Structure formats: C-alpha cells, structure tokens
C-alpha cells in the first residue's frame, strides 16, 4: 500500500512537469514577480521613462510601446488605489476620466510641440502633462472635499493628478507611435481625422479601468491585477502596429517598424495572458471545468 502511494507520488510530479512543459514555455516566475515595491516607486519609474519615450519621437515604435506599457501600468495602479475604497459609480468611470483628461492634455501638448523642439525632440508636449496634473489635482480636491462632493477617499487628490498625467502620457505615446512625430498637423491628419483615435480612446480606457474592474474582490492582489494592463497594452500595440502599416507613417519609412510592434504586442499579450491565467488558477481555491474549455490543472 505504502509502496503504491510512494509510486503514485513519484509519478505525479513527473506528470505535472510534462504538463507544465507542454503548456508553458516560459519559466514560472509569478511567485517572486514583483513590481517596484510601492505605488510611488512605480509612478516615478513610469513617469521618467514615459517622459523620455514621449520627448524623443524618433525612437523605434517598440521602445515607445514599452513606455506605453508603463503608462497604462501607472494608470491602472492609480485606478486600483482609488477604487479599492469604493467609488460608488463603478471602476470604469475613473478610467474614462483618465483618458478624457489625457485627450485634452494631449491636444494642449501637441499645440505646444512646435515650441522649443530640436529636430525630432519635442519637450513642449510636457506642458500638457503638467497642466493635466494640475486639473486632476483640482478635481481631486473637489471630489474629496467635505464641502462639495465628499467622497472621503484617502489620497484621492494625488491619485487623480497621477491619472491625468498617466492618461496624457498614454495618449501622447499612442499618437507618437502612429504618426512618428508629435506635430499637431500630422496627428490631426493621421490620428484624429482617420478615426484611429476612437480605438485609442476605448482601448486606453480598457487598459486602465479593466484590470481592477475584473480582479476586484476580497482576495485581490496587486501583482496579479497589474498583469492585466500589460496584457491589454499588448493588444493595443498590435492594433497600433496594423494602423502604422496601413497608414505608412513610420518615422523610418520602413515596414519593419510596424511589423516589429505587432510582433512585440503579440509576444507581450501571449506571455502576460498565459501568466495571468496561471496565476489565477494557482491562487484560487479550486478550478471547476465546464468541459468546454480545457482547464490547466
């Protein structure tokens, strides 16, 4: 009896190993997969990299895509830290607000792009980011103040400021990827009037609002929630890559720029989606299959 059990135990890990090898090509690093230890650290890192990726518009699209991932991560983290106290109107509202602010800030930034630019470097656009941070701060004050709306959410002012900035960065980076520059006329021609902006608006909202909306609950964990915005940004990168190819607006006038963005988005999406599903499966109490979809242990 005991020998049988031992045999079964010996056999079990082997089976599991084989299954894991089949299902996941990537090593399982979810356990010690940590984002910068706290929210401030993530905000600072994301802010600095987004500034660099936004200003230098001559960078390849893939690097801007990395900046876009950080911007949406930052936004999703801000959504998470405000929404966990309960907004009352649903989590998507604050994600829509971030991208709504982002659109206004991006238009202002683009209007100032022509001032102080050196070649393909546009430091003027940062004015839009700063002003949107200010407006976010004001709206956070009004929402939180006992005299007016009295939401009484701790640090809502700061979170709304960060949301405005992250939304503006996300918008500017998406425009920058598609047009290859941040000139107002180019963005109007290639982004606004072609209607690509509609995709950007809704997918940006999805990347910021959906993660916490999907993961909220008593057992929510920050690392697991923040896998979702990265995955959605992968999808955005695929769509932006296709629009780059169709519009032919790469700063290098080459096909490889758009193609590399599509491949990058595909890899990011596959890796983070499978990792998210595995993390959920591992951390849940039990997975009960319906038989329609094959469950991964």
């Amino acid at each position: 009896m005991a020998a049988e059990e031992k045999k079964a135990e010996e056999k079990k890990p082997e089976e599991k190993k084989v299954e894991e090898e089949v299902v996941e090509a990537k090593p399982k690093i979810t356990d010690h997969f940590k984002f910068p230890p706290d929210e401030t650290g993530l905000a600072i890192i994301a802010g600095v990299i987004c500034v660099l990726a936004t200003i230098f518009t001559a960078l390849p699209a893939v690097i801007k895509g990395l900046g876009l991932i950080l911007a949406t991560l930052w936004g999703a983290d801000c959504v998470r830290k405000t929404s966990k106290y309960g907004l009352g109107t649903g989590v998507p509202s604050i994600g829509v607000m971030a991208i709504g602010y982002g659109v206004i800030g991006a238009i202002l930034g683009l209007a100032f792009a022509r001032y102080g630019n050196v070649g393909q470097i546009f430091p003027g656009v940062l004015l839009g980011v700063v002003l949107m941070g200010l407006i976010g701060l004001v709206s956070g004050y009004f929402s939180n103040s006992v005299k007016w709306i009295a939401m009484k959410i701790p640090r809502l002012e700061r979170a709304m400021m960060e949301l405005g900035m992250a939304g503006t960065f996300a918008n500017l980076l998406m425009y920058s990827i598609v047009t290859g520059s941040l000139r107002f006329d180019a963005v109007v021609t290639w982004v606004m009037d072609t209607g690509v902006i509609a995709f950007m608006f809704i997918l940006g909202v999805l990347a910021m609002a959906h993660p916490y909306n999907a993961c909220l609950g008593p057992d929510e964990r920050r690392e697991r929630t923040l896998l979702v915005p990265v995955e959605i940004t992968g999808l955005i990168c695929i769509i932006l890559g296709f629009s780059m190819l169709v519009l032919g607006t790469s700063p290098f006038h080459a096909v490889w720029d758009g193609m590399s963005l599509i491949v990058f988005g595909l890899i990011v999406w596959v890796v983070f989606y499978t990792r998210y599903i595995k993390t959920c499966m591992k951390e849940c109490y039990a997975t009960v299959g319906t038989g329609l979809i094959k469950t991964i242990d």
Partner: protein
Amino acid sequence: MAIEPELIYIVVYVTIGGVLGSLAAHLCPVGGAPAAMGTATGIATGTIQILLGAVVTGLFTAATVSTFTNNIVLVMISGAVGATIMMQVTMFFANILYGFGCGITPTSGRVAVDPITKADQTSYKTPQTDGHGIPDVVFISGTLGGFSGGAGGALMYYTLLHYAHFTYGTAVIAALGIFVASAIIASYNIRGTIEGFQDPKFKRVHLALIPTVVISILCSLVVVIATIALRGA
C-alpha cells in the same frame, strides 16, 4: 494682445456644456449592478457608460448636421435629439427585457405615487427591493437627461469646431474629453444609483455645480491656451 471674443465664447460655451452634462448625469436613471438583477430602478449600468453612449450618439448627429449648417442652435438641438433617441431606445428595451424577460412591473422605489401620471407605485414594488424597471416618471426624466447631455456635448463640439478652429475629428474627441471630465465629477455626487428628478438624491445637484463649473472653466482655458499656441505660428 487684445482678447478676442472668440476666446471668451470658448470659455462660456464650454462651461455651459459642462453644466448641462452635470445636469444630465443627475437626470439619467442609473441602476448600476442592482438594476442588472432587477432590484433597483433604472438602466443596468454605471452613470458614465450611459452618458458616454448618449453623448457619443449626440456628437454623431451633431457632427453630421454641422457639415451643412453653421447655426449653433440647430447643431445643439440635433445633438440633443440624437442623445435623446439613444437614451429612449435603451430605456424602452430595458423595459421590454424587464417586463417580458424577468416578469417584473416597472415601479419606482423612491416615490409612493408617480408625480406625473399619479399611478400607484408602492403596491407593485417587491418588498426588500428598490423598485424595478423604468416607470413613466423615470422615462421622462431620462429623456430630459439625454436631451440635456446631448445639447451640452453638441455645444462643446460646435464651440471647438468654430471658435477654436479644430477639425471635425479633433473637435469631437476634445468635446468628448471635456464632457467626460465634467460629467464624472457629477456622477461621483450621486454615488451609484439615481432615479431622476423625483429622487431625494437629486437635491444634491447644487453640490456638483461649482466643481463642474470650475473643471469646465479649467478645461476650456486649456483649449484657449492651445488655440493661442496654434495661432502663434
């Protein structure tokens, strides 16, 4: 540099649009998650999803009309009509689903007697719920909300198109951004669910007024700065 009247129009009209949007957020029947289970009055989604849907439809009609007229009233009313139709279709089909799918009668949970049709509400309400479906008074309130929101969005769109000299696409998306920014502040004021003007929560509308005005003014100033910067070169 003399301040041109166009720049003042931008600030004034965008602020009026923001206030109309804030009013729309208070008038639209929002049920949220409880309405999805049929235990609260209103449409079963959040404030901002309803408003976004309504104002996008309104901007669609307004943009179509603005291709052949420069009349501000016509553009505004066309946007309002588009948003109203969207709200009414949503409310009508929600009622069909509630009535023939769930088998519940549209009943207000906040008032005992319908203030407009004088129909009895309390005897049709299931105990322990907050009303269900979209009764007459809520339907009328939602219609007014859609009208107000669509008019606000279309007014912002017209302003950005003709006074800030944006292109059609830019004006639509910027109007959407400003509308969303001012309507969300109002939606935080109602906290989840609201039935319409007969709801006791509607009395909080004045609290959202000043924040919306301030946010709209700030957003319109951003547009003014952008316009000046664009004109500079």
